[in-house]
């Protein structure tokens, strides 16, 4: 294995707190993400991991705290703006477009890069057609990368779970994101599928230098592939550091082994 070139901090979260009504979901969470690293967020169910991702890509707006992205403090942003900033994600419960094929789902991931006018698309001539073909090629490269050639034209609703997860990853990749947020990409998979998915995650990081923020339950996988891990528990931040540091952190051990406090 060669060394990855991990760069400067591109995403910095400071003292993030988020509540829904009286329910406090995130409590004073702070961590940063460096360029080209694989950053994992782990923690038991209800620890606020998914909420954390939702905060990062603007679905939830934290009541307190500050997010800076590429050195700039981020203002409140609309949901669709995150994609424009180069943040793509996958979802814990697959959020594919069920009525469309694998190909079309991934094509949709490139929507921001498509610039042809509606009129051009209507006559399907000139720019629109050229664009379709150009992007199709890009999408085919992703299909090739994720080894899903055989299901290219299958409606995603008919695919098995593991494949759907892969297609969703493809859709996120299609945006050529700078940061890829993966919400439990390996949940509900068997060992073989998990291995495949880990390989893809590593390859993506390796090939494209994409920064990856990953939520995962499977501790083994997380410790294997992450550069740094942050541990959440009921909205609190238990630990943050390299897998080794986290593995030896007493709070983490207690929380995971269920030792009463």
């Amino acid at each position: 294995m060669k060394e990855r070139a991990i760069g400067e901090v591109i995403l910095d979260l400071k003292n993030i707190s988020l509540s829904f009504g009286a329910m406090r979901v995130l409590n004073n969470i702070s961590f940063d993400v460096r360029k080209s690293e694989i950053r994992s967020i782990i923690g038991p169910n209800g620890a606020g991991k998914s909420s954390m991702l939702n905060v990062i890509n603007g679905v939830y707006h934290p009541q307190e705290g500050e997010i800076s992205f590429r050195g700039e403090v981020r203002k409140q942003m609309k949901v669709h703006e995150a994609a424009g900033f180069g943040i793509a994600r996958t979802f814990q419960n697959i959020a594919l477009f069920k009525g469309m094929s694998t190909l079309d789902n991934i094509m949709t991931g490139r929507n921001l890069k498509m610039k042809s006018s509606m009129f051009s698309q209507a006559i399907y001539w000139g720019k629109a057609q050229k664009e379709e073909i150009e992007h199709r090629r890009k999408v085919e490269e992703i299909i090739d990368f994720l080894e899903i050639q055989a299901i290219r034209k299958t409606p995603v609703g008919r695919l098995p779970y593991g494949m759907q997860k892969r297609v969703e990853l493809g859709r996120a990749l299609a945006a050529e994101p700078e940061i890829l947020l993966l919400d439990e990409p390996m949940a509900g998979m068997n060992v073989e599928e998990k291995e495949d998915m880990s390989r893809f995650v590593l390859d993506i990081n390796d090939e494209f230098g994409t920064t990856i923020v990953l939520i995962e339950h499977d501790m083994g996988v997380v410790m294997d592939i992450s550069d740094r891990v942050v541990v959440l528990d009921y909205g609190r931040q238990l630990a943050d550091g390299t897998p080794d540091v986290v593995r030896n952190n007493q709070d983490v051990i207690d929380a995971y082994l269920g030792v009463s406090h």
Partner: protein
Amino acid sequence: MRLERDVIYIILASLLLMVAIPWMAGTLSEDIFFEWPFFFEVAIGGLLSGVMYSLVALGFVLIFKASGVFNFAQGAMVLFSALTLVGLNEMGLPMWLSVIVTLLVMLVLAIAIERVVLRSLVNQEHIILFMATIGIAYFLDGFGQTIWGSEVKNLDIGFSQEPGFYFDGLILINDFDLIAAVIAGILVIVLALFFQYTRIGRALRAVADDHQAALSVGIPLKHIWVIVWAVAGIVALVAGIMWGSKLGVQFSLALIALKALPVLILGGFTSVPGAIIGGLLIGAGEKLAEVFIAPMIGGGIEDWFAYMLALAFLVFRPQGLFGEKIIERV
């Protein structure tokens, strides 16, 4: 139930507007006659007919709550039940017996709908079920008129249609409307009690939240469907009697469903109180607008005013006044 603060604000604001706009219109425009007793007369008349709207909307809510089906056939059920009642009555059955037989017919109808339509379309998308209820509506309209004929029939249940003076003779109100409102009110109370205090009622409420939970109450889903459709049928019959005796039993009864729709979106598809308050707001608003605004823009606005009113409400609360908030989860 707990009223959210913004709902209260919206209702208060709309009440204020209901008073303010006619008053302003009266002062600004010479076409419009505005006096306080007259204003109240119109408003109360509106509220009373609003109760009638609520009655139809109630049928929608019951079914939507328990099965998620947007029952477009509610209007057809009103027409069908009224036609059946009058038809039986004309055949020589005494009124009380006709009512009982009609109730039985509505029960049979509910069972048939569950057997034929709902069971076959279980787990389908909402829009499919919605379309199916339009199919039911067509079928019932056709069926009812095939059997009972399509000429206008009178339904006389012995209430006076004469207007009477109330509040020291200041305000002229239709007696019939008042009685209808009372009956509708009673029905609403009965239904509320039914939902609150009977086992089936509780099951129905559970079903609205979670089908699994409903099963644990111990009543099969299909029974629940039959029950709500039957109850909706009873509500339709009451509405049919009221509207039928007011307008005569004829095809246009089916169209009152269109009147109930804005009530529904205003109150929220899943809320019984929403149907009541929505009906009142729409009824009063519509009447007030017709009298105090319509003359300025050419009149005949009753077709769409209720919708626009509801639409305006929706922009503030997309789920209706009392509807459950839709939370996006990812």
